[in-house]
């Protein structure tokens, strides 16, 4: 197992800085996921940890040792690539055994380790095949096997499931999680898929534009997002945002949506906490599952809306609603789904809303 520490890690290509002084600690045995949209620098960061990209400034430590100038082969890490990167001219056995042969391990040890890894991943029957004779999922397993046999301190995964179809992806996701639980090695996993991040991670690192936006558990990231970006990136469908203004009144706090025609009264518990932000222009954020067709909690507030689109998904139904301030998507039980064009009252759970600063996008933390 290994501990990874990044200190002011910066990457520049010529005059363009793509990673802006990142500080991050990944703990022993942790499953950390770097998540963010395309071009946010997550793969670059991973490749810098792997030693495949040089860092322009800063420091990377693996188990306390500075590895800035250490070649990849000396970092005791294994990596699974997005495109698998199997050696096409070698059999599956030789793909798995390659690193061990380079280390000049005895033949019997190589055989034993390869067979063990193949057993874990259920690819024993494929050992004689060439990669071109394998399906996408089998190739992915071989790529993982190649990482396992090395018994590295640190596993790196660079979007390993993005080339698989949806069904295989969810299967392999579970496999990776099981593998981590079984092996327990520190793992850094890069993905642009927030579902993968939420399901796999012990801690998620959300990146955007070469900066860390938030580091936290999946629960933190989902329920306590630090910014509008993070809130909008997690969840499917993502959080709804409506422009709003906080209005203070002598008795309570009200959130005026859009042009002010719609008013939501904050629950008493939160009213006091947000009072300090009175008269500020904000973004009101509410997750689709915190909207309902009927009153559920004491602090729910209703809002008139018209149903624009209804999308039945079987277990749930998504309804796109037009309310005065803009569009919102709500997640409803199928039996409560309204019809398109219907005028309804949608109930907003006022214990679950989020407020973000209109200008900076930072969350307004209730005190």
């Amino acid at each position: 197992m290994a501990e990874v520490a990044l200190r002011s890690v910066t990457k520049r290509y010529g005059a363009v800085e793509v990673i802006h002084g990142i500080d991050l600690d990944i703990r022993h045995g942790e499953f950390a996921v770097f998540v963010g949209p395309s071009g946010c620098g997550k793969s670059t960061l991973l490749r810098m940890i792997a030693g495949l990209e040089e860092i322009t400034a800063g420091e990377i430590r693996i188990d306390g040792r500075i590895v800035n100038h250490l070649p990849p082969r000396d970092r005791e890490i294994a990596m699974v690539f997005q495109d698998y990167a199997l050696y096409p001219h070698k059999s599956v056995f030789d793909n798995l055994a390659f690193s061990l042969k380079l280390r000049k391990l005895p033949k019997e040890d190589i055989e034993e380790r390869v067979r063990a890894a193949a057993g874990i991943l259920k690819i024993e029957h494929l050992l004689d095949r060439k990669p071109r004779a394998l399906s996408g999922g089998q190739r992915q397993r071989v790529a993982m096997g190649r990482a396992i046999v090395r018994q590295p301190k640190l596993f790196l995964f660079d979007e390993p499931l993005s080339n698989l179809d949806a069904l295989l992806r969810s299967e392999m996701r579970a496999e990776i999680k099981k593998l981590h639980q079984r092996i327990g090695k520190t793992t850094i996993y890069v993905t642009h898929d927030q579902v993968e991040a939420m399901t796999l991670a012990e801690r998620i690192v959300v990146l955007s534009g070469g900066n860390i936006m938030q580091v936290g558990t999946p629960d933190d990231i989902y329920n306590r997002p630090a910014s509008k970006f993070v809130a909008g990136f997690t969840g499917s469908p993502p959080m709804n945002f409506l422009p709003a203004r906080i209005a203070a009144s002598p008795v309570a706090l009200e959130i005026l949506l859009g042009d002010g025609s719609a008013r939501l009264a904050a629950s008493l518990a939160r009213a006091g906490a947000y009072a300090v932000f009175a008269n500020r222009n904000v973004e009101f954020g509410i997750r689709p599952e915190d909207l309902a067709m009927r009153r559920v909690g004491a602090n729910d507030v209703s809002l008139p809306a018209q149903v624009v689109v209804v999308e039945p998904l079987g277990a749930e139904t998504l309804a796109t609603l037009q309310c005065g301030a803009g569009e919102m998507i709500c997640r409803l039980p199928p039996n409560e789904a309204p019809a398109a064009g219907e005028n309804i009252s949608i109930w907003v759970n006022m214990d679950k809303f989020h407020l973000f600063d209109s200008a900076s996008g930072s969350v307004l933390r209730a005190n």
Partner: protein
Amino acid sequence: MTGLLSSVRMRWLAAIIVVANGAFPALWIVLTSFKSEAELTQKPITYWPQNATLANYIAAFRDQPLPVYLLNSAVIATISTIVSLFVSALAAYALARLRMKYRDFILTGIIAVSMFPLVTLMVPLFEIMRGLNLLNSYWALVLPYTVLNLPICTLMLVSFFQDIPRDIENAAMLDGCTRLGSLWRMVVPLAAPGVFTAGIIAFVNAWDEFLLSMSLNAATQYRTLPVGIQMYQGEWAFPWHIISAALVIAMVPIIIVVLLFQDRVVSGITSGGLKG
């Protein structure tokens, strides 16, 4: 129907023209090598040898030290091909993979250099080899052939190396290879079609070269085949039939090289290593 004519039939026609253009002279030489001198000069001409004979082959070995020429050509072509491939693989890898500031300029330079007419290099090369005391030696031809083959080999390998996914090299480097190790263990084997094609071109170029060979290696014991074959020609005689036999003998190694490596010159070996 018109579409069919323009696609399938026209392609066949083009293929037949190309193959005939290349194969006919070689076939004619093979047929000539089995004809007697009398048959060669008779009219009307015969296409198929009427009394096929191996006498021309016996004469080819009797009149000139053909095995010596064969050995010289083989040694010089083999060494220059291997060295060319080695050096051009390194150059091509650098051009294909490293972030180089003047990459395009270097590639243009390589193309420009390869277009120099050989005849302009003859005098300087002769002077250099004389200065180095290398005239009439294997090195006199190995060195210039290696250098002359570098541009074509480098350009071919650059395009093949560029097609090999970087992540395969990265995976090899994580598995324990150095950068050069990943070049020799991954890039070169995966670019085998390119490497063998470049090698065959380099070998044939060296095997066929006449001008430099005649100028730099005039001594019999270092003569290569193209120059040696010219020696069959006398002041008053031009023994086509014997020269044809010698030419057939000269073609055999090339045919063997091509046949040996034709399986390797099949692209698509990389399929399967990556997604898809």
